[in-house]
């Protein structure tokens, strides 16, 4: 609308597709695709051990798209827990998605973006995609961000689905230490990439406070411990950041 020289439709299509594939490529080349391979090999083995099908895992990866919730769901179905109990555990594990979506969408959206187009990045929001989007999107032209973000997400989700199958069929053949090392990939990569992303003071504060508060509140067995970790740690970080900004 505002641009007097808008490119021809074909050109837009090509550049949108090109941006999508640039996102896909950057997903496959990032350390998170390795992490997802490790995580979903483990998830595949777990799925196999509780007697669910490989296609069930694939569908749950596409629909749930959150490793902690999937872990809860798979082990709950395996142990035959009460439905309400499982739903509560899943929804508690998913509270983190709320502030993530709120922080992400304004980066992806333009004034002209339709609400419908926001549904995909909303559903795709997960830790790996969120960390990489916050790092990469500011370097990308605003009108390309949606396509890039979708490409990135499809890359990650595709990797997770494929390696879920790999783990399912490899199943219990791994030595225990190797399984342990695969499980260690998740906290390690989240840790280092969050450190890498925390360039601003507020991020560093939130990171350190979260590292300290998470285990502390967890150790006290406070209900909703992670939610409180986020609210307390994030709010303290926010206020210190604000007070220092006013002081300068």
């Amino acid at each position, binding site marked *: 609308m505002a641009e007097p020289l808008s490119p021809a439709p074909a050109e837009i299509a090509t550049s949108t597709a090109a941006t999508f594939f640039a996102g896909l490529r950057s997903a496959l080349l990032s350390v998170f695709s390795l992490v997802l391979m490790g995580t979903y090999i483990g998830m595949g083995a777990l799925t196999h051990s509780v007697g669910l*099908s490989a296609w*069930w895992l694939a*569908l*749950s990866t596409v*629909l*749930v798209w959150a490793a*902690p*919730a999937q872990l809860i*769901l798979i082990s709950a179905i395996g142990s035959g827990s009460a439905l309400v109990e*499982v*739903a509560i555990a899943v*929804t508690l594990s*998913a*509270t983190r*998605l*709320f*502030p*993530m979506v*709120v*922080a992400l969408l*304004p*980066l992806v959206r333009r004034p002209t973006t339709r*609400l419908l187009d926001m549904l995909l990045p*909303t*559903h795709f929001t997960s*830790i790996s995609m*969120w960390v990489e989007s916050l790092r990469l999107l500011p370097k990308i032209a605003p009108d390309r961000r949606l396509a890039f973000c979708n490409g990135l997400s499809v890359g990650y989700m595709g990797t997770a689905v494929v390696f879920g199958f790999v783990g399912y069929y490899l199943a219990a053949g791994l030595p225990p*230490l190797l*399984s*342990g*090392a695969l*499980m*260690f*990939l998740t906290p*390690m990569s*989240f840790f*280092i*990439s*969050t*450190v*890498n992303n*925390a360039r601003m003071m*507020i*991020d560093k504060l*939130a*990171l350190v406070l*979260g*590292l300290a508060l*998470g*285990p502390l*509140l*967890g150790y006290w067995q406070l209900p909703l*411990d*992670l939610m409180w970790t*986020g609210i307390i*740690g*994030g709010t303290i*970080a*926010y206020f210190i*950041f604000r007070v220092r900004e006013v002081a300068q």
Partner: protein
Amino acid sequence: MKAAVDLGPYVMLILVGFLPNEVWRLLGLVMARGLDEGSELVIWSRAVATAILAGVIAKLILFSTGELAAVPLQIRLGAAACAFVAYVVMKRSVFAGVLGGEAALLIGGYLFTP
């Protein structure tokens, strides 16, 4: 019929997996309407999300489950420290950090796991 028997896990997937998980994303979508990336609520949300993520990381390392729990706590913490050092020494390379942490865990786990 096998299909009827197999329907159970799929219904569970939707009812107690997909829906209770997705509701937070949709709430975020509603909340983010009209906010721009510099707004106070977005800055605060980012800090909250970062603190939650850090809490998840620390809990995964300290209170591990499954095969990872068999590796002693000191080794897990040492491996996390190695990852951080490798990241800093290798000019802020995330890949080097993760690799360093994993190598330390495998070596430490191999030598010291009872």
